């Protein structure tokens, strides 16, 4: 008796959501064993996570703050993916956006906020967009693998942030940890009253809605999906894959750049040296997780990034109250991703039992 995989022909949105839900449920079960093994009661632990993340204004505020980069980096992964591209450079594009918006804030400290902040947003979008766009160009022109190039630029951008925070833009006053000086208050993105959630969240949600319609209802969206699903057909129907690759990588990179703007303008108000472990479950990589959780649907992405922000917030709280180690949220993220990607098999294939005859 043997199992084998048979290709499904009926891949639908409902199937997609079903496979994600099953996968998440299995990941939760697997994680329960981890909790049991460390002497925590899974049911009460999950209750704690939910309460910590969504049960109070403070918790919701922390969840919201984390949701913003997840959402924008999720979109940064999703848009090129629709054209068949792998943008795993969200980390670098986020850092580039952060550099550009900080640069604008340092260069024009006398501008009033209504002028300065939009300028920073545009700069961040262009910065992240160009970093993504370069990789798109190398791909379109010379078919250089975008997985490699976007990943390499992650390091380049992080190193640039490190260089700027350690040397040219370094904050004076003998602070041991290298960071840049604070940007002027006019460059601070306002926050929703009573919380620390900055209004970049609105930008993220609006972007997700626009992208949903852009991909579905416009001619360009149709071209993107064609290039992604059937490059041959796209070629014969005269769609310029050069244009589509450049466009999706630029927009994807730009969206991750906006996440960088949010971190600088809304939260940190400065740049600091990164400890050189980019893939350590940072936002740019988590963008990939939330996009998969959302079944590559940008409207669902709003929900999945909110929930994921909650998981991180709740996990952080859990490790304090249940005295678990800091790895617990990373472990949980990894488990979810492994199960979700494994669960995609339910979406694309039927698992059949082989009975004697081939």
């Amino acid at each position, binding site marked *: 008796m043997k199992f084998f995989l048979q290709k499904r022909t009926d891949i639908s949105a409902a199937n997609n959501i079903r496979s994600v839900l099953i996968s998440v449920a299995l990941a939760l079960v697997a994680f329960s064993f981890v909790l049991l093994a460390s002497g925590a009661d899974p049911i009460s632990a999950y209750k704690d996570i939910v309460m910590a993340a969504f049960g109070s204004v403070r918790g919701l505020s922390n969840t919201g703050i984390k949701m913003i980069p997840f959402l924008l980096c999720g979109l940064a992964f999703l848009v090129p993916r629709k054209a068949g591209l792998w943008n795993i450079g969200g980390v670098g594009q986020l850092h580039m956006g952060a550099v550009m918006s900080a640069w604008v804030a340092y260069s024009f400290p006398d501008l009033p906020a209504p002028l300065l902040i939009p300028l920073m947003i545009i700069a961040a979008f262009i910065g992240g967009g160009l970093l993504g766009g370069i990789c798109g160009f190398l791909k379109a022109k010379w078919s250089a693998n975008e997985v490699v190039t976007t990943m390499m*630029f992650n*390091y380049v951008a992080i*190193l640039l942030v490190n260089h700027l925070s350690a*040397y040219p833009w370094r904050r004076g006053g003998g602070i041991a940890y290298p960071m840049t000086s604070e940007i002027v208050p006019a460059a601070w993105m306002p926050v929703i009253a009573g919380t620390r959630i900055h209004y970049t969240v609105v930008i993220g949600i609006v972007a997700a809605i626009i992208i949903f319609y852009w991909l579905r209802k416009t001619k360009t969206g149709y071209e993107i999906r064609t290039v992604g699903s059937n490059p041959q057909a796209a070629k014969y129907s005269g769609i310029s894959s050069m244009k589509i690759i450049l466009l999706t990588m630029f927009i994807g990179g730009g969206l991750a750049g906006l996440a960088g703007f949010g971190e600088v303008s809304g939260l940190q108000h400065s740049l600091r040296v990164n400890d050189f472990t980019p893939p350590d479950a940072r936002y740019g990589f988590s963008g990939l997780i939330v996009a998969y959780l959302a079944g590559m649907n940008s409207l669902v992405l709003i929900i999945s990034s909110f929930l994921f922000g909650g998981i991180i917030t709740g996990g952080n709280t859990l490790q304090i109250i249940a005295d678990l180690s800091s*790895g617990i949220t990373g472990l949980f993220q990894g488990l979810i991703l*492994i199960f979700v990607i494994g669960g995609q098999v339910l979406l694309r*294939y039927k698992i059949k039992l082989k009975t004697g005859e081939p």
Partner: protein
Amino acid sequence: MDTIILIMQAATLFIFGTMGEVLSQRSGVLNLGLEGMMVVGSLTGFAAATLSGSPWIGLAAAMIAGGLMSLIHGFIVITLRQSQVVSGMALTIFGLGLTAYVGKHFLMVGAPPRVPTIVSGITPLLFLGLALVPLTWFVIYRTRFGLIVRAVGEDPEAADTAGINVARVRYICVFIGGMMAGLAGAYLSLAYSPMWREGMTAGRGWICIALAFFSMWRPAMVLIGAELFGGLWILQFKLQGMDIPVISSIFTSPYLLMMIPYLATVLIVTLVMSNEKLRKRIGGPAALGVPYERSS
């Protein structure tokens, strides 16, 4: 002289990790989970060596742990035919989380029994790393196994037609890659900087992936790349210890210097892909990243 030894010590880790990745990629499987497998190797090696009192048992346990980790990736991408990119990412995030979680029991236990040195800080592992270069070259280009691996990576359909079990070959290569990553991790925690710290691989796994592309899957180029990255890695720390005025110039900023190998990788990948002749001569795995599915 001391600096050269320092560089070679740093490079040894890159050689271990990259050689495994090269073999895996040669068979058509990209494994972005290197960082995760490596850090699991670091912890397993540290724990096994501390508990057993022998660094060699630590190294062996780390290789097994790395290999087992790689089988998760193998199962998802070879058997379930899912995306290699996402599965590798998942493995890295999972490995970093798992080790941070389990590793808290080993944070305060002091130095592990370290790999003995032959002369002034040089361990036998350094020579093992150097020996791996001709050895891997021999295996890839001069053995039947190497021929099969290359065939599977270049044209799995043709290999299948010729009666080769594509899935089995890929599993073997991914497993060896995982063991090498485990070894690299244990080299870190038992020889290079004998201790355990959360996330102690600090991005070295990702450097190995960069190196695999930099080398264009050629063992000799792996050696050159590993020494280059090793040199810049050491230089970075040396420069960081200096006064700010000395290094304010853009030519001496450790961070800007560290960009060189990454930019070089982008350049090499682009150059090779842009030139049909060059690409043919290098003969890289054309089926890299593509799940194999019988079309029948």
